[in-house]
């Protein structure tokens, strides 16, 4: 899961080569990698890739702080489902 999400964010949103390779614990918010437009694209990607539907209550900074945080959020949301389906 970490690899899939890291690859997507690196490919789509990290346009500054100095920030690559992107560490799984690197901040996505303080660095500006995620802004309102890129976050929305990430949400759509996560929904399609992991078969989930996200709402406003899911869009907490702590859920999108890093690749690790996103994965922790997804695993906590529906334990086992994402890994079983796509892992």
């Amino acid at each position, binding site marked *: 899961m970490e690899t899939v999400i890291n690859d997507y964010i690196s490919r789509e*949103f*990290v*346009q*500054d*080569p*100095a*920030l690559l390779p992107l560490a799984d614990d690197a901040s996505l*918010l*303080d*660095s*500006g*990698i*995620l*802004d*309102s*437009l*890129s*976050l*929305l*694209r990430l*949400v*759509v990607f996560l929904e399609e890739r992991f078969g989930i539907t*996200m*709402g*406003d209550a899911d*869009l*907490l*900074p702590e859920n*999108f702080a890093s690749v690790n945080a996103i994965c922790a959020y997804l695993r906590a949301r529906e334990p086992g489902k994402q890994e079983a389906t796509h892992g």
Partner: protein
Amino acid sequence: MDDTRVLRDPQLPTHWFNILHDRPQYVTSAVSRSRLGADAITAGHGALLQQPLALARQSLNTADRFIPIPDEVLDLYAQYRPTPLRRAARLEERLGANVRIYYKYEGANLTGSHKLNTAFAQAYYYSRAGVKHLVTGTAAGQWGTALAYACQVMNLGCTVFMVRSTLRQKPIRGDMMRLFGAVVHESPSDLTEVGRRVLKENPAATGTQSVANGEALELVEEDSESRFAVGSGENSVLLHQTVIGREAVSQMALLGEFPDCVIASMGAGSNFGGIALPFLGAAKDSGRSVRLVAVESAACPKLTRGRYLYDLSDALGTSPITKVYSLGSTYVPPPVYAGGLRHHSAGPLASAMRADGTLEPMDIDQLTSFRAGMLFCEAEGILPAPESAHAVAGMIDVVSAHPRQEPPLVVLVNISGHGLLDLGAYSRFAAGEIEPVTADEDSLSLSLSALEEFNQRIAEPAEAT
């Protein structure tokens, strides 16, 4: 609300038209804020999206050609929609041109302009997302008035930063917003860092939409239950405005007509997109073509003299960096009565339409627009808002060039709002006190240079590879 209590006209569209389905290439082009380095970080209350997810999704949706309008919003639209589409027969006679002129009139609702179409929709989505308060910037005041009323209907608080020059031109706009319960501040103000910075540089600053939006965004950061709402430019806003064009397509069809040319004024693109986009869809469906003309103010000529580059949309610098036709976010247009046309950039969607030639830009100076507005008023009995008067002037330009020996040109122009709160400006016109106003060349040159430097700066990391 009990549906049996609301009588909806059968011509009221039940869905918005989503151009991104037909033209996914119009999805907003953006670069990461990480290109800004340390400046990428902005203080705030941690909300990741200003918009509710349901609203934000509309700006990226390429899957659905038609998006259902929520029932509660439809009931509100039913207060004033469908709006009239009429033939301007007396204006045709006055012009003596080889044309059939139709106009769509959006000024008959309580707040007096098309802005209510998206204000109701946005207030609905924000309310459902649990937001308690909306903050915005407004230029001419039409958007601020519409949002103030929509917030009152949806039991939301509302704060409006209105551009100083236009608030002083027509303080009654501020009165209307306050009547609907909004708190109204003149922008630039001393309430925010953005405003204080502008006032320090120039205590007599006339204000811009960019600064007003920056002040609104800064205020929002201080309250976790507040969000920033925007009245134009965003894809979702243009989507909501497509009720105008969807109605117009049906109304023209009832008359056995399809326009050769659709004309609207251009601020950031909402009234233009609202009427034009459904005709793009209808033209595709019927194998026809349609010419789309966007009329901007010569004081703020972003489509005719701007650059298609990446830019920020607010003076605070917190917005996404999107590709737009822009004069640069530091450009200060001279004060003109068409305050709604003073935004430094077109929205991403309208900009993409300009870039691929779908949209034809035209700039009109203030004096020409007032002449056209008065002519329209005398002929049709509707005083157009100064912004809409630009559309009328553009339409006169288009029809005047149509050869007499050809079949009559069929044109449709969007009268996006009334000018009853601009009577002072029209009186000045009648007294011969209105001058043509063009771009501030010094400010334009500096701002375009800054815009190009900004693009070089955000491009540097990629070039280093």
